[in-house]
């Protein structure tokens, strides 16, 4: 039934492989072979796509285009981050796109016609998301309607709701300087480096503290070499990114200077860290995985499954609201199409491409960011190649299908290897 070799007569921990770079790498290869690909397809895809676009269109590898990628992918990435929570439970939220539209419209209307300060309006938008999540979650968990149907209905209804909010199709412009800055302004270059130093420093500190604490207790701890490798990789990748983003990318630097890390980047980073901690290090997150893996087992362990489902939908819709705010900021306006057309499918695609399973129980918030990067690169690169919307839709559709196919095949492979 299983390929795991049994090791008779060996103490349980002595048999654990010492974690070194070599062993970690071997264990990773074994996992991938067993069908657990994680983010590998996304990372490989990203590399291949970037290489192809860089060769086909040299303008792809300019500082200005690199910065564009972040602002282009931000809204979809944020929505995808929320979707991960719902997908983890094996549910789906098809309304997340238009939910972000509704929340963006709430933001725009409260800003424009009520003239409230930006933070009140942003809070109102996020609260709208929370309410949407409670309603969707309750319909799924308490009433028992399949999430596919509930959110498909909501998909239609929210489309109508956006039209109501923007008075049947007017374009409401968003002029608040703070909101507009989110997707259109950059951090001062020194602030970018400070952020970089804090991120790398904190990451290294957490890794070191955990390893020493575990070693003190006599548990298997990661060796220094492995930690150095991880921290080094992050330091190099993030360092290159900050350096490029701090290059002058204005066409006419004498007139207006354009440098620095886009403000959406720290926004995404903070949310990525917060949600990752919640998912990986709290009992709430642990229970989400448990429900996604085996609902009945979770119920028997005394986990409140219904409440957990509702909170996943709340997180999803609230993150859709954040995505909506960023989208409104980027366009400096909200119209009936905000959060519409391809936004939802791009977001679901981002989560799945990143390695989150549509079958539940497997996924990370980081997946959404990696997948979001893939989607942004496709969108951006195809645009530079001069292809129209038709080809973009076709290609993204194929990529989504490919990602879902990889997910399903990985599952079958894992089953064949006796891993599931």
């Amino acid at each position, binding site marked *: 039934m299983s390929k795991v070799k049994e090791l008779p007569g060996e103490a349980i921990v002595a048999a654990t492989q010492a974690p070194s770079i070599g062993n970690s790498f071997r264990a990773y290869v074994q996992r991938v072979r067993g069908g657990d690909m994680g983010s590998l397809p996304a990372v490989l895809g990203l590399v291949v796509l970037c290489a192809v676009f860089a060769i086909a269109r040299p303008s792809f590898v300019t500082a200005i285009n690199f910065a564009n990628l972040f602002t282009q992918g931000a809204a979809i990435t944020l929505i995808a981050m929320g979707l991960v929570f719902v997908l983890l439970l094996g549910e789906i939220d098809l309304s997340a796109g238009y939910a972000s539209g509704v929340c963006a419209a709430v933001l725009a209307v409260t800003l424009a016609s009520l003239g409230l300060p930006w933070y009140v309006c942003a809070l109102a938008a996020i609260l709208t998301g929370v309410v949407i999540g409670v309603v969707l979650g309750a319909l799924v968990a308490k009433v028992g309607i399949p999430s596919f149907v509930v959110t498909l209905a909501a998909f239609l209804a929210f489309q109508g709701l956006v039209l109501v909010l923007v008075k049947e199709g007017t374009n409401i412009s968003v002029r608040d300087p703070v909101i507009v800055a989110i997707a259109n302004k950059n951090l001062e270059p020194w602030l970018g480096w400070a952020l970089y130093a804090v991120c790398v420093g904190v990451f290294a500190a957490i890794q070191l503290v955990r390893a020493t604490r575990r070693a003190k207790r006599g548990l*298997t701890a990661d060796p220094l070499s492995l930690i150095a490798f991880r921290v080094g990789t992050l330091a190099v990748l993030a360092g290159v990114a900050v350096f490029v983003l701090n290059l002058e990318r204005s066409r006419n630097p004498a007139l207006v200077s354009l440098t620095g890390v886009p403000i959406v980047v720290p926004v995404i980073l903070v949310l990525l860290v917060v949600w990752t901690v919640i998912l990986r290090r709290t*009992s709430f997150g642990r229970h989400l995985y448990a429900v996604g893996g085996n609902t*009945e087992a979770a119920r028997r362990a005394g986990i409140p499954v219904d409440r957990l489902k509702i909170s996943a939908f709340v997180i999803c819709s609230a993150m859709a609201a954040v995505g909506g705010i960023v989208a409104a900021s980027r366009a400096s306006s909200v119209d009936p199409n905000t959060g519409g057309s391809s936004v939802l499918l791009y977001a679901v695609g981002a989560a799945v491409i990143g390695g989150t399973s549509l079958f539940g129980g497997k996924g990370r918030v980081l997946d959404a960011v990696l997948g979001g990067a893939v989607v942004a690169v496709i969108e951006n690169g195809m645009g530079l190649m001069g292809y129209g919307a038709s080809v973009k839709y076709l290609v993204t559709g194929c990529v989504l299908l490919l990602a879902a196919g990889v997910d399903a095949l990985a599952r079958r492979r894992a089953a064949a290897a006796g891993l599931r």
Partner: protein
Amino acid sequence: MTPLLEVRGIDKSFGPVKVLHNVEFSAYAGEVTALVGDNGAGKSTLVKCIGGIYPIDGGEIFFDGKPVQIHTPRDAGELGIEIVYQDLALCDNLDIVQNMFLGRERKSGLLLDEDSMEELAEKTLSSLSVRTVKSIRQQVSSLSGGQRQTVAIAKAVLWNSKVVILDEPTAALGVAQTAQVLELVRRLADTGLAVVLISHNMNDVFAVSDRIAALYLGRMAAQVKTSDLTHAQVVELITAGRSGELGLKNGVTP
């Protein structure tokens, strides 16, 4: 000797169907009590009543000689009654430690205290002399059937439980793995736990049990020491509800 767990006169119906009729059942500390019976005899229902999953319609439950009320799985857990279900209640996508602490995670502040959970899980597994898993941070999906069963049992033992009820722990296992699990079952009883083993397999029952309780069509046909019974007698109790002097006196019609 007073039984650690005793139920008296339990009735349970699902709608018009009466599944348990006035059932008596006892389990003693340090002993393995085998609960046998044909399909539909009410073994699983009885266990679920004891575990607080089904409410009982009538009868009493005594724990350590004192009457107790069990309404939810939590109540059962607080008394120290743990059930290892037939369809193992494990999450494939979590590792061994995560599964063992599922729903009862240890925390330091808001965050999970992974280190102390790992330590305790390891201690429990080695106290059960479990040596067959590579790493306790291994996902359950990568374990064999016997290993999963071991984890499920270890999970039940982790909570200072006093009564461990195993629902068909060997049904899906091969020969070697069955022996492994049975050995573990015997060890549990030897450490002073009251173990209830539900099984269809006579070899298993005779290999580890001290007492046998046979259910027949929702009625307790007999509760006898294993050493006083033969293989054939148990089979008769299971299939006919009686065997010579033993069993239900007035023939029961289905």
